[in-house]
């Protein structure tokens, strides 16, 4: 297999094509433009594939909705302010049980914010994001290689559970270049989903809808979604543990922040501090059990994020009052250095008298 040097944005585009993505709809916004540009260059002229630069994020997600209901693998990408606009369509797709992949190369907020990497969309991504009681699967890659691998997975999960899947990256992951290998080949023939709307030929007509004037019917729809979410929570949790076996202090971080934390932890280890890392890869479903398992032995948790403390809430919910959690975060697109995180680690380590 050949290694290629690619940006995270381009790698996701390439992986999507290899995953059988047949349609991409997007709208320009920094820092994810390279992904739309990659699809324009490499997907738009492929047989049976579609690329549209839409008039808005709202239109783009509704095109995804249309392509998905027609039975093809469909995706869109954007960055934070654009993802806010897409929430309408994501809610409808959740309601209609339509698969789709949505990439958020997130940037600083609120408002127009900045164009620099931030992780402040964690709440929005992991709590549904739009109106109504629903969830999306959220994957948080921390390297270009993992971004590619999770892109395949995103399409597979979306189809398996008929659910929108969010890839929550950030501006740094989208724009930095790393070597990446692709272990899938783009399929020649892609089967059409059996529940697709393609005209009522040889079968009764079907409709896909979200509206009902009957609260009992809508309640049952909500229950049915909830049961699927419970199944996803049971089956699909992913996380990475790094040097946690003997750790006295466990840092939890996701995405690019976990890379920074790893650098700090490696140095801390050299200085004799027993520090490890727990990195959620699925941000929803959250690796609650992994946190609880660690909490049987570990007392101190440092949550490190490039925001004001969002995943912190999931850690606290998982700990259920056990252990002690600390938070260090830099919002607004400020990218902390490993040595900055190391300082926080050693302060906690020594204040708590750990050896």
């Amino acid at each position, binding site marked *: 297999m050949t290694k290629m040097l690619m940006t995270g944005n381009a790698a996701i585009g390439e992986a999507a094509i290899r995953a059988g993505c047949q*349609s991409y709809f997007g709208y320009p916004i920094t820092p994810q433009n390279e992904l739309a540009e990659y699809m324009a260059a490499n997907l738009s002229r492929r047989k049976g594939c579609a690329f549209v630069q839409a008039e808005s994020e*709202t239109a783009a997600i509704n095109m995804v909705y249309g*392509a998905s209901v*027609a*039975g093809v693998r*469909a995706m869109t990408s954007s960055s934070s302010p654009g993802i806010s606009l897409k929430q309408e369509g994501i809610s409808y797709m959740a309601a209609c049980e339509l698969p789709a992949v949505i990439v958020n190369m997130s940037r600083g907020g609120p408002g127009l914010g900045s164009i620099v990497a931030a992780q402040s969309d964690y709440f929005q991504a992991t709590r549904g994001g739009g109106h109504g009681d629903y969830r999306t699967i959220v994957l948080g890659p921390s390297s270009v290689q993992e971004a590619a691998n999770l892109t395949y997975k995103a399409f597979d999960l979306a189809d398996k559970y008929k659910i929108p899947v969010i890839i929550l990256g950030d501006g740094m992951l989208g724009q930095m270049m790393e070597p990446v290998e692709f272990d899938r080949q783009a399929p020649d023939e892609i089967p059409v989903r059996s529940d697709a*709307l393609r005209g009522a030929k040889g079968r009764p*007509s079907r*409709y896909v809808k979200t*509206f009902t004037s009957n609260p009992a019917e809508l309640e049952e729809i909500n229950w049915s979604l909830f049961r699927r979410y419970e199944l996803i929570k049971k089956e699909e949790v992913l996380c990475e543990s790094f040097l946690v076996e003997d750790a006295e202090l466990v840092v939890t971080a996701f995405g690019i922040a976990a890379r920074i934390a790893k650098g700090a932890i490696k140095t801390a280890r050299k200085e004799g501090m027993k520090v490890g890392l727990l990195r959620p890869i699925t941000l929803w479903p959250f690796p609650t059990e992994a946190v609880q398992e660690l909490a049987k032995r570990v007392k101190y948790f440092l949550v490190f994020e490039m925001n004001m403390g969002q995943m912190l809430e999931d850690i606290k919910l998982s700990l259920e009052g056990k252990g002690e959690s600390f938070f260090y975060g830099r919002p607004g697109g400020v990218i902390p250095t490993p040595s900055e995180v190391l300082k926080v680690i050693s302060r906690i380590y020594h204040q708590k008298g750990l050896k």
Partner: protein
Amino acid sequence: MKKIFTRPKSLKLTPYHYCPGCGHSIAHRLICEVLDEMDLQDKAIGIPPPGCSVFAYYYFDVDMIESAHGRGAAVATGIKRAFPEAIVFTYQGDGDLAAIGTAETIHAANRGENITAIFINNAVYGMTGGQMAPTTMLTQKTTTTPYGRDAVLEGYPIKMSEIIALIKGAVYIERVAVNSPANIRKAKKAIQKAFQTQVDHLGFSLVEILSPCPTNWRMSALESWQWIDKEMVKEFPLGVIKDIRGAKDAD
């Protein structure tokens, strides 16, 4: 005995929930008759909007997907691009197509998306209880223009069909009404031409249908049909607005 009139195959045997005198039921039937006559029932994918016609899928015996408010043209774009063999049509009201969905409509037309929009103009938001629509007539009273629409405060009735006709990707635009047997026949011909435009891969087609809403206009069915002739057509004249094939009016 020869059967000379029957329910179209594309129309389910379901009693309409629409108010007496409402134009939706006529528009639904005309579309279904055209789909039958053009043998498009098993190729068609319809996109109904939020609003009174959200339940269109209870009546049309074709594949359908409900759109978010205003997004019909974007959803249609996604379906048509993913599966170009489908005959894709949106069914949208004036608030949907000419207010919240203006951008989606104009840009789908501008891309020359090979889809058909059926645009029901009844000059009010119907299902929400008769608020001002972008197409509400000047001086017309609605629940949000209780003193009558005043151009200074609320602007003018928007002529979406004329606006869209300026767009190169739009190839067939006609305004019709469903308030008399003669007009209903013309409306059907227009719908037929719009679908033919799509079958021939020519680009974006739109049929605007002036449609009575007696309930929200606070009129009897008969008065509402007459009001279209007396008032609405002054602002929204009937006829072909654009046809790149150079065809004349439907009669």
